[in-house]
């Protein structure tokens, strides 16, 4: 079993509550207390800093209404579609550029220039092409996540140990076999990294686009709550989104981590 290779470093038995945990809890409690004091002080305009109780109530209200889950599903679907389309295209383009010197020389500099451009500037065009609904969000997310995936795949392709390719050739592997049994597994680390970056930017682009102009999705709900000045509801949504982002990040991180047990 590969498990036998997993080495767990020995640790001294941890005390019931470590000083670090204690400090963290203290910081959180301090922030919450200051928040609560501010909300009751009357120094700020009403509900700019709503009381924790109000936020809690809004949170329960949010999570017990199907409406929220519908919009969450819309956003998740948009990000998922963007990742699938943008990531898939990025992978294909990246592998092609990585495999072909000529194409790479001709086109890769465009990727480098377009890659860091904030994709939100294309949002008006996307609205014209794909409408106010999820279409324009998916398009923007796709555009965002295409670049990091394509660039990572192209770099990963060039980093493949040449001898592994020769091994495949010497065993007369077909092109399809070369791609699925050698190229893709050999570049799994850069690909996972690219997908991680791609997911991040797709999430940003989608939510940003939703807050700008939309009729569904979490970004739409947040900006809607803001526009009717329902601050507790807005904060409740931010909290849920925050927790979801942490969860998504750790899942993608786990994917990369699982793999590193095998070999770097």
């Amino acid at each position: 079993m590969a498990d036998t290779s997993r080495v767990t470093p020995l640790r001294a038995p941890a005390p019931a509550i470590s000083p670090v945990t204690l400090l963290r809890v203290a910081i959180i409690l301090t922030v919450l207390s200051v928040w609560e004091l501010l909300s009751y002080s009357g120094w700020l305009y009403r509900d700019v800093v709503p009381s924790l109780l109000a936020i809690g109530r809004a949170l329960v209200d949010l999570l017990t209404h199907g409406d929220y889950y519908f919009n969450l599903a819309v956003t998740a679907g948009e990000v998922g579609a963007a990742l699938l389309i943008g990531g898939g295209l990025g992978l294909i383009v990246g592998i092609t550029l990585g495999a072909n010197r000529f194409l790479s020389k001709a086109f890769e500099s465009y990727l480098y220039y377009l890659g860091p451009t904030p994709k939100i500037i294309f949002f008006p065009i996307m609205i014209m092409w794909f409408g106010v609904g999820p279409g324009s969000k998916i398009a923007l997310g796709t555009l965002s996540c295409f670049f990091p995936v394509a660039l990572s795949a192209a770099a990963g392709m060039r980093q493949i140990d040449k001898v592994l390719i020769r091994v495949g050739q010497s065993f007369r592997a077909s092109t399809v076999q070369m791609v699925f049994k050698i190229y893709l597994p050999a570049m799994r680390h850069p690909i996972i990294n690219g997908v991680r970056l791609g997911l991040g930017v797709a999430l940003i682009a989608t939510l940003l686009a939703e807050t700008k102009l939309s009729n569904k999705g979490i970004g739409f709900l947040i900006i809607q709550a803001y526009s009717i000045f329902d601050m507790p509801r807005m904060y409740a949504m931010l909290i849920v989104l925050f927790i979801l982002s942490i969860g998504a990040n750790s899942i993608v991180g786990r994917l990369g981590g699982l793999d590193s047990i095998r070999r770097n």
Partner: protein
Amino acid sequence: MTAPAPQPANNDILVVDDVVVRFDTPDGTVTAVDHVSFGVRPGEFLSVIGPSGCGKSTLFNVIGGLLGHTEGVVSVAGVTINGPHQSIGMVFQEESTFPWRSVTDNVAFPLELVGMPKAQRIERARHFISLVGLDGFENRYPNELSGGMRQRVSLARTLASEPKILLMDEPFAALDEQTRLLLGDKVLQIQQQLEQTTLLITHNITEAVQMSDRILVMTYRPGKVKRIVDIDLPRPRTSEIVGSEAFGRYVAQIWADLREEASRGMRDEEDHMMHHHAGGAS
């Protein structure tokens, strides 16, 4: 093409006939392999030895079908080959195991490519893992193995494809001396057990004499056949033979041939560097 076979009653399984390889470089055309002809008999262990730069690795790639040649014919059992051929199994000098595959999956790789059912290919892989002495490591990954063990995985993987001819390019070059000798023993034992026709490319005289039935000595650039030496030592052999008197004589004889070529290579390299530096300074 039109050149007739050297001997009509030739039962060589692998024939390299008048092969020439030229490369175009910025400094002009370089002939790496110059009219090389030889044959390998079934079950024979033939080594090709030569100094660095004699084109022996080029020859390895040409016979393996990974590199085209300019002139001449390479044929297996009378069939001309162009490109990788199933009769020829290559073992590379470099680290070539797939790091994302376990030992079993590495060895089963060629069987997977031809679509052998999973249960069957795992069984076959186990057989070859055992043959190279890696029982108990079936589920390990290459990063959990030593360099010598990884090279044995590569050997098992190539053997699993059951090639008529095992073609190896300095497979022990990256290993330390003791591992190299012990692994050499293992290869000898397997080769004798399977009666595996083997062509070994090497620059190590001891290794070549220890294992070979014949040794082909190549000249330094352009690579030609300088001499083919029959090694008339008893079989089965192990690395113990290294101590015998006959062994010493063969080593001395081949060194005499090689020495001339190696020193030509060294002079050539020095000249090249001098010109390079002079050119750079002007």
